[in-house]
């Protein structure tokens, strides 16, 4: 199968409500041609609704959806040429694998030999050419998903939509399929939008991610931007694990001074305009965990605490450390023979101000 034409998707000021329930509120996002784009959010955030809107299964009250510069708002789903892989795969149990894949081509009234060739090519692409005569019920979950994928790309759609594509697979297969999806997308070059509630999944394979909550886009960016520079508290908390510390910020020359009962005073290398209540965020792995008798150093702010819980996660050990009334999560890398601190152990935590993110 050849590379497909790369198309741009633009969502402009889209709002959608069911009665009084606002599902999407003034959503705008532009997806570049050939991009692998993720819509990430908790359940009920509106991410699936946005995907279905692009496919034509929902109607927005206002706003526009442009595919390749063309407004599709009034075009019914069957004329959109936008391939969608459904969460439950939606394979028709009364048709064989080949009949499933041929369906969209038959609906396009293509000559029979063209249909046959393209079905074979699509099945070849997903590695299922020996399964053409099977029924969907005879396939494993992973195979069913490949059929769904083959059925969708067989029509050579302008855009590929994936609705929670990996959620029905077991953990091992999920990681495998995720790599496979990405390589397929790169091979075809097709603009791809996928919906997921799993931040690890979104961060690992997408070029860019839009995070939604309560029908509002919270942030759009590359995975690294989201992780390192969360735009707000929701993003900081939702993407990865993070420590949030409340306090008060005030200007200090061209820098900021953050004061909190937990950490005392720290200097942050960001400018602020005036004094205000604020929150800082810091990733667990950016905290340095040391023994209670560690002398400390000038580059970090050090606080003392007691280990409350310990979770062994293989690559690292995650400690929940009680500091005063608050708790901090700190990850310590794990090596064979490395130190392990049991609950109750007194420890010191070092915080590098450069790793601290001031949330607005």
């Amino acid at each position, binding site marked *: 199968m050849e590379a497909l034409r790369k198309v741009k998707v633009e969502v402009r000021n889209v709002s959608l409500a069911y009665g009084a329930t606002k599902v999407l509120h003034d959503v705008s996002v532009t997806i570049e041609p050939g991009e692998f784009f993720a819509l990430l959010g908790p359940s009920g955030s509106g991410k699936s609704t946005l995907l279905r809107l692009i496919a*034509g299964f929902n109607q927005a009250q206002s706003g526009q959806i442009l595919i390749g510069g063309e407004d599709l708002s009034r075009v019914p*789903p069957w004329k*959109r040429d936008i*391939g969608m892989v459904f*969460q439950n795969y*939606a394979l028709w149990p009364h048709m064989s694998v080949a009949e499933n894949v041929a369906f*969209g081509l038959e*609906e396009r009234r293509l000559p029979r030999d063209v249909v046959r060739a393209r079905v074979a090519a699509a099945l070849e692409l997903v590695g299922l050419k020996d399964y053409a005569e099977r029924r969907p019920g*005879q396939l494993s979950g992973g195979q069913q998903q490949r059929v769904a994928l083959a059925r969708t790309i067989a029509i050579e759609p302008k855009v590929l939509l994936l609705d929670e594509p990996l959620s029905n697979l077991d953990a091992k297969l999920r990681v495998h399929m995720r790599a496979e999806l990405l390589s397929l997308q790169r091979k075809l070059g097709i603009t791809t939008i996928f919906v997921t509630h799993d931040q690890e999944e979104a961060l690992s394979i997408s070029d860019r991610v839009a995070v939604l909550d309560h029908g509002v886009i919270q942030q759009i960016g590359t995975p690294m931007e989201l992780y390192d520079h969360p735009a707000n508290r929701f993003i900081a908390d939702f993407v990865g694990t993070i420590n949030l510390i409340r306090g008060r910020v005030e200007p200090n020359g061209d820098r900021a001074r953050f004061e909190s009962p937990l950490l005392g005073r720290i200097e942050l290398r960001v400018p602020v305009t005036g004094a205000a209540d604020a929150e800082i965020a810091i990733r667990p792995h950016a905290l340095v965990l040391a023994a209670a008798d560690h002398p400390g150093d000038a580059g970090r702010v050090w606080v003392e605490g007691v280990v409350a819980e310990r979770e062994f996660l293989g690559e690292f050990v995650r400690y929940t450390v009680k500091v005063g009334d608050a708790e901090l999560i700190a990850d310590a890398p794990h090596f064979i023979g490395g130190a392990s601190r049991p609950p109750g152990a007194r420890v010191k935590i070092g915080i590098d101000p450069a790793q601290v993110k001031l949330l607005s």
Partner: protein
Amino acid sequence: MSSRFTPAQLAVALLIAAFLVLFLIVPVLTVVYVAFADGTGGFTLSHFASFFHISLMRESFRNSLYVAFWSVVFASLIAVPLAYFTARFEFRGAALIQTLGVLPLIMPPFVGAVAMQLIFGRSGTVNLLLGEWFGFTLPIMDGLNGVIFVEALHYFPFILMNLVVALNNIDSSMEESAQNLGSSGFRLFRRIVFPLAMPGFIAGAALVFIKVFDDLGTPLVLNQTNMLAPQAYLRITTIGIEDPIGYVASVIMVAFSLFALWASTWVMRDKEYATLQRGYGGLAKRRLGRGQSVLAYAWILLVLAIVLAPHLGILLLSIAKVWSFSVVPDSYTLEHYATVFQDSPRMIWNTVFYCGVAALIDVVIATAIAYILLRTRIPGRQALDFTVTMALAIPGVVLAIGYLRTFRDIEIPFTGELLTTSWALLIIAYAVRRLPYALRSCVAALQQMHVSLEEAAENLGATKGRTIRRIVVPLMAGGIAAGLIVSFMTAAVELSATLMLVTAQHDAPMSYGIYLYMQSAAGRGPGAALGVLAVLIVAAGTYASHRVIARRGTREAQGGIAKVQEIQTAGA
């Protein structure tokens, strides 16, 4: 869905609505109107007053309630253990029992009634044997007892089938968590299993109540005319279409049937169904202990013997030369069948034709309504469902009276034939009365279908119409076929509307013929022979449709087997 509905969908909905208004709502409202109207078009209760002044009518009213109530009780006593044993325990022949349990439905209750008299009547087989061996007899078939007995035996499958479905829908985790918390045995059944299956039981029980209230043939054959349906029938056929007392009786029947229907949904309001999650198993089947096994089998065999008695009786009667005051017939003959084949091939054809067409009309309308109900947002779509369901509560006698009154003097275009004397009206009556069964079957089939299967088709370029043809209807095929079978089966044994709407012998279906034969002692042999043929035709139709469904099913089954083999070879 992308839009609320398309013009084509709206047009279909309007067409169906028009059909229902013309052939269900208007006729029923006409009956109600006549019952409350004085001669000048004003409102009056005087017809009701005169109805309750007639002591025969008061008695009929009481008798109908009495019979309906006790029929439900006895039907439950038969159905609940059968359903529980077969759905819940590992049991040889459970499928057979459930199938045999459906048998009574395919023989008209009034046909069974004649056989029941021969077997359980005062001088029937059972009482002759009892009298000979133990010196006493049981008044099983005396008076209203006979009606109750026949009705309970005939209609218990409604409770059985609803209950089995409900039991099979209980997620095994429901029961397992109760067991995990220490519940078992009868307490487990009483506190968890039965309450969860309650919607099925209530639905079945309400249906039995309504059907018994509505039944005309059984009381007539057993000569218990002091009930509402026979009275309505007799008043209209003997006194005439203008007699208001028949209308009052009709309105009372409709009111009580509607009440039963409403009560059954009211009782279950706010109660959540425990439905099966996809991929999870139903109740685990347990093994019975030795003693339990013996008891269960004994009970089931006893029930089956009684249930099958009328069928056996009819078969014997159809080949008996003489059968009276004896345990079994004295001598046998095939001449009744010869008589029937000579007299009434026309009736057999009429039954197949009328019921076939009615069943086809039903599944087409039911599929359309199911789709409109579940897949479009046409305003008032629930009203279609509601109206069709209401048809359940309209007794055949009432619908027929409504037709005769509403369509009197109306001619069929171009032929000049009166609609009320045409067989077309009979087909319509069958279709309207059986529509609720077909609708439930189709709605269930479509409900089980995930909407993403259709969205995937639209996403790949199929329009709504193409999606219905290529995806929806093929996937609903099982439900549609089931609806077709049930509609056909039950229409073939319909008597109450038939008796009133058949005006010419050559237009009559078999049920009418059987009834006519059964009126005279000499006609019982041929009547029974015709009854046996009716059962055979219905059974053949059922078997044929089962084959169609099974062929689809085996592909799935083969899929399952292939998967098992795959796993086994992978393991080796």
